[in-house]
């Protein structure tokens, strides 16, 4: 910084100010280019991680299914764990890739007409083994007369899957997880509202904004009990907003969480 003393003329001050502004513009341009580089890096590294993971999982499945000869039960369990771990890693890599695309504004919406109940049924079915393994109960309720959506089905599926995955992860054994779908109308709009709730550990109100922030975890310590990229809800929010909706939560520490998202209905006549 240049010192400005009382003897400096106004003209000189203007020059200094202009210099400072130029400097700031340069720093800003540099930061933007580094940010783009970071996004590209994340995208490349995700692709490079997926390929070997694909090979690992395929090889392990070949062993598990006895294609190279029968395995003992314990060998099969061990190989099944390789597959489980590989799939978990793959999900994390997928999240990073989606985040990188979102950050680079490369996420596009391919809308089609569908009913949210089909998505909820699909995601619930996929999570059933995990629900059973954790000793949780899952209930799904879709109110009568909920209209269909015109949105990107894959992205909406991703959001439901993320919210349900979190609900399962943060709810101890014996707890309940639910998905309720309702139709909410006001004077001008009709929204399809999805609630994913749980009786889990809950989130203190002062952390409600934090959970949607990228890389944020309420407990970031290395010894934390719940792992993840910290990108899931950031991505969920981005996807909901890309499809013209909004996402929010209601929760108190120790009293479970209720995440909601609402998307404009595609066809209000049904």
């Amino acid at each position, binding site marked *: 910084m240049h010192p400005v003393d009382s003897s400096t003329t106004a003209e000189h001050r203007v020059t200094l100010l202009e210099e400072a502004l130029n400097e700031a513009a340069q720093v800003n341009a540099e930061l933007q280019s580094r940010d783009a580089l970071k996004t590209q890096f994340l995208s490349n590294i995700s692709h490079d991680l*997926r390929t070997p993971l694909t*090979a690992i999982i395929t*090889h392990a499945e070949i062993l598990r299914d006895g*294609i190279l000869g029968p395995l003992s039960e314990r060998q099969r369990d061990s190989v099944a764990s390789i597959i489980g771990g590989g799939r978990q890693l793959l999900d994390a890599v997928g999240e990073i890739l989606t985040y990188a695309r979102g950050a680079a504004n490369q996420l596009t919406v391919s809308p089609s007409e569908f009913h949210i109940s089909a998505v909820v049924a699909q995601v619930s079915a996929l999570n059933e083994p995990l629900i059973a393994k954790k000793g949780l109960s899952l209930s799904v309720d879709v109110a009568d007369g909920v209209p269909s959506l015109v949105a990107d089905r894959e992205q909406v599926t991703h959001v439901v899957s993320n919210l349900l995955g979190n609900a399962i992860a943060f709810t101890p054994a014996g707890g309940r997880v639910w998905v309720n779908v309702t139709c909410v109308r006001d004077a001008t709009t009709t929204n399809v509202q999805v609630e994913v709730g749980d009786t889990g550990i809950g989130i203190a109100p002062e952390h409600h904004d934090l959970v949607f922030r990228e890389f944020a975890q309420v407990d970031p310590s290395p010894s934390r009990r719940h792992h993840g990229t910290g990108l899931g809800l950031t991505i969920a929010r981005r996807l909901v907003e890309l499809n013209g909706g909004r996402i929010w939560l209601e929760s108190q520490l120790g009293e479970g969480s209720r995440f909601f998202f609402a998307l404009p209905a595609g066809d209000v006549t049904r």
Partner: protein
Amino acid sequence: MQARPHILIVDDSALVTGALTILFEETGHDVSVAGSIRDAVAAGSARSVDVMLLDLTLPDGDGLATLLELRARNAEPRVTAALTGRDAAEVQARCTAAGCRAVLVKPVPIAELLARVREWTAA
């Protein structure tokens, strides 16, 4: 005796083609492997292909170009399935328009992959 179905695996990762080669050879198929559009066109022209499993991102271009080139040479595989890392509607639409029978997201569970390939080669 009926000939073993011929599977052409097109992917630039030797790790991935290695795994799929074991899978299909061990389950009664003949396997050819190509890591580029050029090699895939050569392999597909040299011997007729029952099922081509086609990665979309190849070092010398868009994987779908392989299918178009083989078709132009009258050597189109009986069935082509795209193998992709992305389950996006636009990818799906592009592959279907080019003539792919299916678009499968990697890693495809092998039980599903085998079932599909058996269904296509049985017909």
